[in-house]
């Protein structure tokens, strides 16, 4: 498994592999709702704040939050196109990332923008969130598309 990469100095090359079993805990419902075509956020009625990504506990008062459905419509707050990335996403390049302001949500949401015409993209443009039919149980199961 180990191979020598250099002798002076001695450098050895070794792979290391880990298998993670990651629990989404109380945010599970976000992912399982996607199969019903529903986009869910969490809300603290006490603090009148709606969170996406969902938070099971309100950061302001530490009360438990409740689930609310959102429309998935919104506007672009800012955007970029990536031409380089970390190892895992090199195969996807180039791609677009956006922060979106979603109706009924107090936080901005970071997601990919899928569009055929990047030149038309601008701050304030209307978007709609889309849900993958082939879930990977990741935040990448949803993305934004222009809503025209």
């Amino acid at each position, binding site marked *: 498994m180990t191979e020598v990469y250099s002798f002076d100095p001695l450098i050895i090359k070794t792979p290391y592999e880990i298998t993670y079993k990651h629990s989404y805990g109380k945010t599970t419902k976000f992912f399982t709702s996607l199969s019903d075509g529903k986009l869910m956020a969490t809300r603290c009625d006490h603090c009148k704040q709606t969170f996406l990504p969902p938070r099971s506990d309100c950061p302001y008062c530490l009360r438990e939050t409740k689930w609310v459905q959102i429309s998935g419509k919104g506007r672009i707050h800012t955007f*970029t196109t*990536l031409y380089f990335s*970390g190892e895992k996403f090199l195969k996807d390049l180039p791609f677009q990332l956006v922060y979106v302001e979603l109706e009924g949500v*107090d936080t901005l949401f*970071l997601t990919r923008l899928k569009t055929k015409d990047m030149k038309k993209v601008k701050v304030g443009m209307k978007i709609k969130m889309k849900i993958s039919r082939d879930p990977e149980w990741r935040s990448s199961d949803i993305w934004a598309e222009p809503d025209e």
Partner: protein
Amino acid sequence: MPRKVAVVAGGLSYFSKARRDKTQEELAAEAARMALFDNDINLSKDDIDGTIVSYFSDHFENQLLFGSIIQDYLGFNPKPSVRIEGGGATGGLAVRDAYAHVASGLLDVAMVIGFEKMSEVNTAKGNEFIALASDTDWDFPIGGFYSGYYALMAKRHMEEFGTTEEQMAMVAVKNRNNAQHNKFAQTNPKMNPYAMKDGGKITVDDVLKSPYVAFPLKRLDICLMSDGAAVMILASEEKAKKITDTPIWITGTGAGTDAMRAGDRPRTLSGVPMLPHEKKEWYKELEYPGVHSFRAGRESARQAYKMAGITNPLKQLDLIELHDAYTSSEIQTYEDLGLTKYGQGGKLIEEGVTALDGDLPVNPSGGLIGAMHAVGATGVMQGVEMFWQLQGVAGKFHGSDKTQIKNAERGLIHSHAGTGTYVTATIMER
């Protein structure tokens, strides 16, 4: 009253994309030797009462508990030691922690040891590790990459305030070219035997023509990734006066934080935390904290200025070492630190205020773009640089007199993590 705390010595290793000649602990010894033996001090290794160890991630070496290896390798057992971590701000947090240890009386003389060896994985994996320092449930899986996050913030800054790619390029030119007079700098092949071969001076045109990594950020807008180490020695007032005739005092320290996912910043719940010289009406229209700025940077500055009695930073500071992870974030940070109004950071670089010969030089060392970014060492490097500047010996250590800021009496070091998740500001004075 807490005890006064001084910096009494500093040391650096040469920085490089890959210091394969030495292990991480051997690099730390290189910097520790300089701190102990090359500063003009009356201090032996046995006088150190404990250490604060600063490194970012076990992932880079697959060695957990590395703090213990460093404490052990440098021969400080059985004295107290602790490891501090906070992403890119690890070094700044470690300096602050050492301050707390000395001010509280737990240690009289403390060594801060910062290091990182990022070359044991390839660059794309290194970038992926850094991206694992964003939310791995939400932000990482969509293609998360720090240059992308900063590009989103930079684009919003451009949109909100009219900042330009040319202004960003000017920051890169300033820092890269400053580094050409600092022998430790990774982009300085004339003075650093471990430097990159294609280093040297650059122009605004070079930056603008370099390829986009994430629009609007180009390759030369982005900081280095380095191997290296930095060491500071801090002491209580009583000890400091015995150790050196020119202690440099830590007169203020502040630390701020913000949401791990920049989008979670509560845009509608907060206003701008005000600095003494600012007026509320400046920011009546400004949605804050947005993704255009770093609330944590502002908060850290507010605390540090209050502690050090600074009411007008542009006038009262003589130089700054600032965490220029990106050219855009240097401009954003000018505003967070109150050197100019929010939105006017681009003008500051344009007007040359932060140039080596400007009113308030920023990153005479070359910063993260010109000199190094070996994460856990970075904030400590800034402290070493500031210490040498305020002692007036930067020329001696840098191997060139060009970087020494004349008559520098007071400076600020600024350390920054994530998309602004941790930021520290520390004021040092002669």
